[in-house]
């Protein structure tokens, strides 16, 4: 720990919201321990949207689980605002891919208000007020008193996003939140998410396997190779937004990412 001795206090503004250094993750399988992620470095500043992109088996979801505190790293260091992450907590709200992430025994409004009451000890009426605001922001103000089973898949994901926003986490973690939606709904959800994220300066760690979604949503892409997950490349895509879909630059970046992910896989197979 010679490094610790050299530690110089840095101004708060330069401390990243989220940081992983040499992050290594293992999981236990029938054949023993398998390395899922090997020595990945990540840094997410305030208001940045980092997208983890890679084929299945690259450990992108495992990285997100580690960030959420569900998974303990086998090696490396993982921090939220310079404090080591030791377990799950509402300062890192997660939006999952699965539609059953809403609690079926609570109305949409109470689903959003519940974590506020649990995690922040906010009174029932104030939690509901904040929940109502968050649901309005994602365009769900008509479904407040519905139970989740009455909602469509897209509406469920909107409610899950509202729930995460209302808790005002340091960083929002999204694990392929739109993967189970139809193409049209997915497109609309991506646009709405970007609009909300820009509006409130959301800090986001977003996992996907869809290249166009990654380029659209992210301000930075982090490409991973599979078995085990290792950093392949990073891309700055902050300048590419909704209006650039279909533009030459957008297509060029998409192609490059595609080549890096699948071209390299082909070369390795050959």
């Amino acid at each position, binding site marked *: 720990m010679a490094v610790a001795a050299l530690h110089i206090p840095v101004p708060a503004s330069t401390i990243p919201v989220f940081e992983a250094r040499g992050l290594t993750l293992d999981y236990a399988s029938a054949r023993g321990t398998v390395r899922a992620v090997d020595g990945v470095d990540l840094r997410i500043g305030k208001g940045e949207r980092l997208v983890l992109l890679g084929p299945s088996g690259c450990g992108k979801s495992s990285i997100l689980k580690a960030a959420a505190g569900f998974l303990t790293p086998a090696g490396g260091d993982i921090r939220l605002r310079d404090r080591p992450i030791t377990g*799950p907590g509402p300062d890192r709200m997660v939006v999952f891919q699965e539609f059953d992430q809403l609690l079926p*025994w609570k109305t949409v409004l109470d689903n959003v208000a519940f974590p506020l009451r*649990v995690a922040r000890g906010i009174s029932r009426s104030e939690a509901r007020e904040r929940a109502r605001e968050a649901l309005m922001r994602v365009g769900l103000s008509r479904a407040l008193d519905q139970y989740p089973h009455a909602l469509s898949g897209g509406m469920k994901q909107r409610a899950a996003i509202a729930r995460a926003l209302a808790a005002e986490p340091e960083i929002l973690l999204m694990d392929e939140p739109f993967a189970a939606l139809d193409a049209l709904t997915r497109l609309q959800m991506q646009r709405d998410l970007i609009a909300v994220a820009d509006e409130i300066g959301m800090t986001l760690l977003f996992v996907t396997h869809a290249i166009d979604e990654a380029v659209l949503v992210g301000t930075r892409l982090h490409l991973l190779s599979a078995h085990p997950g290792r950093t392949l490349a990073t891309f700055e895509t902050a300048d590419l937004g909704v209006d650039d879909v279909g533009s030459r630059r957008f297509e060029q970046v998409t192609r490059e990412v595609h080549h890096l992910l699948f071209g390299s896989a082909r070369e390795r197979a050959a």
Partner: protein
Amino acid sequence: MTDTTHLNAMPVETASRRPGTFSASRLLQSLGARRIMVLVALAVTWEIAARYQANPIMLPGFLDAARAFIAAVSSDGLLWAALSSLAVLLKGYAIAIVIATALVSLSVASPFLRDALQTVAAMLNPLPAIALLPLSMLWFGLGEASLLFVLVNAVIWPFALSALAGFEAVPETQRLVGRNYGLRGLRYVAQILVPSALPSLISGLRIGWAFAWRTLIAAELVFGVSSGQGGLGWFIFRARNELMTDVVFAGLAAVILIGLVVEAVVFRGLETVTVRRWGMLR
């Protein structure tokens, strides 16, 4: 979204509900009407068979039994017998649920205890609790303690198995959501695991109730007089000894009615305001 489904469903509804098309086929479609028809048919068949046989000691008619039922409720202490059965039943049921809840909580916390509980429950579940009555009488004598021992055995194992299955079936995503909120320990169990497992918990309560009711009536047929006033089973047994067969039928009707009311009001009601409303059970 629900608005549109309503709109879509509307034309079909109105087409089949045109006023003035009252018909026998429409009546047959209503579940209540069908049930009443089945009951009426049964009563008529029963009455005809009884009159044909003309031996009220072997088979009293439906009307005789109905008259005996009213008389037994108003003067012969059927109501007291039913209440005394229900009092014992509720006592045993409550003890069993408390013990089972403790056992299941422990086994949710420890995989070893879970395996142990599953093994014991799987072993004792197929054993009809009434088969324990001779042992129970040997250990606890002829009294309420004997009945309670048998009752508790009738309820614990099916409820524990059902509850365990329910907790195991809680979706991984909902577990992660609860942990994401920072919920731990008892709060995690009470606010995530219990509501999520509620369909299985209610189903376990319901199976436990049905087992308890059958077991208690059967046990009371064997002895009842020494456990205070004696319950419904004892009421039936005594009526048979006195060859008042219509009163036997009245007792049986009381057993059926209480079973049906608890099922339809308590359990169905509990489901309607919880798991059915939440779409966890259709």
